[in-house]
């Protein structure tokens, strides 16, 4: 993708997906992930959990880039091992967290897992939002527009990965918060997310998602016994931009393996397709029934009239 077109798309992003499709995206991102490739050129990140050393520099870089509150110095991040005592999740002031899990293969080498928004192909949050505050951008990022958000928090309930968080303690202008995939950075030619840049051991690889899937499978093939044969995110809920490799089954390091491969938006489509038929069929039936009733009443009335006349006639 050339720079001009990228910039053009970025301008259009605010105008909505439909417009972006018009400039030559081969497939609609709102269609079922199974049937269509989505945005084929979208970026992704492949996280190799066997490499991560748990230094939490990515957490620091994320706070720094997104100007999030409660930031500590980089040294404190690296030294603070106490945070690993509890599993953490994303919060209003934290878009990404690194958790520690025991390693059944080698107890001296715990497994560290970085988590953030997965940037789904077919995001549940986007299909839940009744003001379209979420957009799946052609570069892969799922972005959030706070200027539209009403604060119903359906997106949080609809996210299968429990990633969006809320500024509950902001009384007047609370926002949903989540990883932005450093949308501004990756929209520029050669841009890479802050966390990926920061990582000292190259746990994360940023690139085209299709290439990363190939890379993931190649790593699994080339290193027998190092990984379980699964690139997490390749097919989960229709596929995600962030992908993971692991040496142990994913459900033992905090991933849900029961999510299935059906994109979340697909689940409410059959119901939504019923809306217009109801407005066509029900009024027709109701008016029909009403006319029958009127006619029946009229006939009954005439019958009585006739009977009365007969009686009088006698």
């Amino acid at each position, binding site marked *: 993708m050339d720079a001009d077109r990228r910039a053009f798309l970025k301008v259009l992003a605010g105008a909505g997906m439909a417009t972006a499709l018009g400039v030559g995206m081969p497939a609609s991102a709102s269609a079922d992930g199974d049937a269509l490739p989505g945005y084929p050129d979208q970026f992704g990140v492949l996280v190799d959990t066997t490499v991560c050393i748990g230094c939490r520099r990515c957490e620091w870089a994320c706070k720094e880039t997104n100007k999030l509150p409660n930031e500590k110095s980089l040294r404190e991040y690296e030294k603070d091992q106490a945070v690993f005592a509890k599993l953490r999740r994303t919060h209003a002031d934290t878009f990404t967290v690194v958790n520690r899990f025991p390693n059944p293969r080698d107890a001296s080498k715990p497994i560290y897992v970085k988590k953030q928004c997965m940037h789904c192909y077919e995001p549940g949050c986007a299909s839940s939002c*009744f003001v379209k505050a979420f957009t799946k951008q052609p570069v892969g990022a799922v972005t959030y527009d706070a200027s539209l958000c009403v604060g119903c928090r359906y997106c949080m309930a609809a996210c299968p990965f429990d990633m969006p968080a809320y500024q509950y303690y902001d009384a007047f202008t609370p926002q949903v918060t989540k990883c932005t995939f450093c949308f501004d950075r990756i929209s520029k030619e050669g841009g890479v997310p802050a966390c990926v840049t920061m990582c000292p051991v190259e746990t994360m690889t940023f690139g085209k998602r299709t290439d990363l899937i190939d890379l993931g499978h190649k790593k699994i093939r080339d290193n027998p016994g190092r990984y379980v044969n699964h690139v997490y995110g390749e097919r989960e809920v229709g596929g995600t931009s962030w992908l993971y490799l692991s040496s142990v089954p994913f459900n033992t390091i905090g991933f849900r393996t029961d999510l299935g491969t059906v994109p979340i938006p697909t689940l409410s489509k059959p119901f939504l397709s019923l809306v217009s038929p109801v407005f066509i069929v029900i009024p027709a039936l109701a008016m029909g029934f009403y006319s029958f009733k009127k006619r029946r009443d009229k006939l009954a009335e005439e019958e009585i009239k006739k009977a009365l006349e007969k009686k009088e006639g006698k």
Partner: protein
Amino acid sequence: MDAITATPDFKPTWVQEKLFLGMPFKEYLRSNYTLFNAVVAFILAIGIPVILYRLIYGLGPSTNLSDNNPWGIWIGFDMLCGVALAAGGFVIGTAVHLLGMKEYSFLFRPAVLTGFLGYLFAIIALTFDLGRYYRIPYPMVVSWGVNSVLFLVAWHVALYLTCQFVEWCPAIWEWLNLTKLRRIFVKATLGATIFGVCLSMLHQSALGSIFLLMPEKLHPLWYSEYIPLWFFMSAIVGGIAMTIIESMASHRLFAHQIKNHDPEHLNRVTLGLGKAASVTLFAYFFMKVIGLAHGNNWHYLDTAYGYWYLVEVIGFVFIPAMALMYAVQNNRVRMVRGWAVVAVIGIILNRLNQSIIAFNWHLDWADRYVPHWMEVVLTVTIVTIGILTFRWIMNRMPILYDHPDFEPEEH
């Protein structure tokens, strides 16, 4: 309106007649010193500050909502139960105006009023749950998220509120003696009813469809492709059962308003409603079983959540269905009323299970949601204000009786 006059030759002014029940202001004030109002005053004295606290300090300090549990009882009870139990207006409207069941027509106005207020206060409660409540018109005027079930709910609830207002309007115009306006609105009743049927079918089921996006968070016993149908059918039960309860209560509390009060007629109608509730409950029960079979979730029945599910489905659906059938066949009106209450509790239980108890069942207990006391107080306060509004209107407008100056409605 029973005009209690201070002196035989006292002629109430317009304000005294319309607002103070035909009494001078002082006397009207004195007539409000009742035990009921004392309780109400107590609730409001705690509730209003809680509402202000929520508005000033935000959701964080006033609720137990969290990043894992974005929805609490303001959605689960106020919204889901409020709307389901306010379905009476739609059910009775269909029966009377579309199916021509004239026997039930005297229930139409109270049912519509209950429905209208139910929706109105569900929306008011929802406002406090929204992070940016002042943006509540956004899905209508700023940005259309047409792929969202919630978009449908927002539009339909707003439109349906308007429909019910139109259906209720004749009573307002009669109260204000506006003959011409009344005639226009009486003519609009049929259209509003038909439109209301479509809207109700869709948004009642859509409230359930909200949960279609969460198969990984909702317990399999409560998750099914049939959620929309379950919600719709149980809302019909809720509407009928609430009409039974509401008609009993208001015919007792406001009996003095009705000139030719015929308890026999009410009893007959109550039995009819009881039968309808029973049949709907049976149908709902079978749909629940079919949902269970369709998802092949039988093995979950022998777990803690399974027992709880059985309490809901057997205890508050199947048994009330049987009991109501028995009561109707043996003409036991009081029993019908009693089991209508059980059916209503069943609907509430179902909505709470769906949105709170079976939701996030995979999380540790420490991460689960338990309402904050302020959430409970705010809910009680909103319900109380709803009841106050209902009473205020019942005391002033011709809801239970035909206004003597007007012909009965015909369209």
